[in-house]
């Protein structure tokens, strides 16, 4: 079916497409700096720091235990996993699952997150819809079904218009998500203007418990450590070493560094 090619006024490009890009970008940058200002300090307790380091040590023991003698490995494994007084068996931490109601700092964090991210998006989206309404802004390069029409063509009451032609509001939303890579280029990786990352965090945050669920982490480490065996990496080290001559190239170079520079 031959679709009639619409020729859009080039003024649209100049006065609609580009301004929306600029607005989105600038709002993103402002959001980033505002989020930095509103950042609250996360204070860790001594116990949390200590526990995280213990878990790291146990993981290192599992991974690199093969570099220390068998006796030492068993000694450490015993310390962690012993039935009566092993660290992982015995240490129970009081875990208070921080629900948003009870934990005031989480509540304010959530509010701040909402204010800085969702609210501006809604406000500006609405404003753009109101200002730049009544005309088609751009065409998406792939064909869309008719179901997308009411969503993407807000304010344009044309039944026969192809669903690929979209209004300015949808161009705005496209920008919000599309400029993410621009933000990482200009603001560095961990920037506060990254919408989709924040939404991802919110979704995954609901799925996993707070990191303070150390009991579960301890249990997992205990199991993993029980399964680990000691394969000494130095079993045949002499044979491996002496199979060839030592590589002494460049050991004695003629130049010695003189002075500071």
């Amino acid at each position, binding site marked *: 079916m031959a679709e009639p090619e619409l020729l859009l006024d080039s003024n649209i490009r100049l006065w609609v497409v580009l301004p929306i890009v600029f607005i989105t970008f600038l709002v993103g940058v402002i959001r980033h700096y505002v989020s930095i200002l509103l950042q609250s300090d996360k204070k860790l307790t001594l116990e949390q720091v*200590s526990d995280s380091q213990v878990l*790291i040590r146990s993981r290192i023991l599992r991974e690199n235990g093969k570099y220390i003698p068998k006796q030492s490995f068993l000694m450490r494994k015993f310390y962690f996993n012993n039935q009566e007084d092993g660290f992982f068996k015995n240490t129970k931490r009081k875990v208070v699952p921080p629900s948003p109601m009870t934990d005031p700092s989480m509540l304010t964090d959530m509010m701040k997150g909402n204010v800085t991210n969702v609210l501006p998006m809604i406000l500006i989206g609405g404003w753009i819809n109101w200002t730049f309404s009544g005309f088609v802004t751009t065409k998406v390069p792939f064909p869309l079904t008719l179901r997308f029409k009411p969503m993407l063509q807000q304010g344009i009451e044309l039944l026969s218009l192809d669903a690929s032609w979209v209004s300015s509001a949808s161009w705005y939303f496209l920008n919000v998500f599309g400029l993410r890579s621009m933000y990482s280029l200009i603001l560095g990786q961990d920037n506060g203007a990254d919408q989709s990352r924040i939404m991802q965090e919110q979704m995954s945050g609901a799925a996993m418990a707070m990191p303070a669920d150390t009991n579960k982490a301890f249990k997992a480490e205990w199991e993993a450590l029980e399964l680990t065996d000691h394969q000494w990496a130095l079993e045949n080290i002499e044979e491996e070493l002496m199979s060839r001559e*030592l590589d002494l190239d460049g050991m004695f170079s003629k130049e010695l560094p003189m002075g*500071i520079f």
Partner: protein
Amino acid sequence: MASVSEMYDVTWEEMRDKLRKWREDNHRNSEQIVDVGEELINEHASKLGDDIWIIYEQVMIAALDCSRDDLAWTCLQELKRQFPGSQRVKRLAGMRLEALEKYEDANKQYDSILQDDPTNTAARKRKISILKAQGKSAEAIRELNEYLEQFVGDQEAWHELSELYINEHDYGKAAFCLEELMMTNPHNHLYCEQYAEVKYTQGGLENLELSRKYFAQALKLNNRNMRALFGLYMSASHIAASPKVNATVKKANVKYATWATNQINRAYQLAGRGTKENKCSVKAVEEMLESITMS
């Protein structure tokens, strides 16, 4: 006295980059840092921008090492002015008190930091080094053990503890600390070599075998580690010379020792390549090796 830039004909940017390199590599060449840093601070402070604060910190610690209290005081004042109430600056103030041997005041300073923030590792470590400076090694060991119970991942602390134990001749515990370091840094040949030396010092057939293995590991990680090469030779010859080993073990160890001898000779041949002095040292090494070799 000519300034650094005149002597070496370098610009201030090169000096600043050199300081950064030293900072990142954790060099402790305090006299050089003081020379370069002092000139940067006095002549080029305005051009450095925000870099100047970290340079103040670096130069201050170097100045304390060289007993340049005047320079240290200046740096501290600038930092205090810019960052009032900062714990990092408080720690530097404490270090200055330590350098002046005012250990009571320094302790009070660190205690106040710890009151504000119990997880501050720097202050706790400084308190332990005060104990070490005062010669109270038993207490220092005890405090360091407690510290490590809570901060198991602090490698600097493990290394310090191993050094303290070696000074107390408690080689078993020193070996434990070095094992921690070897696990977290499996590719660092220096830890393997230190561990092997501790095991060698402990003595006994089993420990000698372990030490030989770890000297070999150090060599495998870095073929040019001469100390490990000599260590391998020594431990292998000692095992071979011991009356308790059976013939196969003895034969194997003699083989290892011979291999090590050849490598040592090769290395000494390479060094200097036939210059007059070198010929004497090569000969000396050969004689030494022959005198220790068992048939």
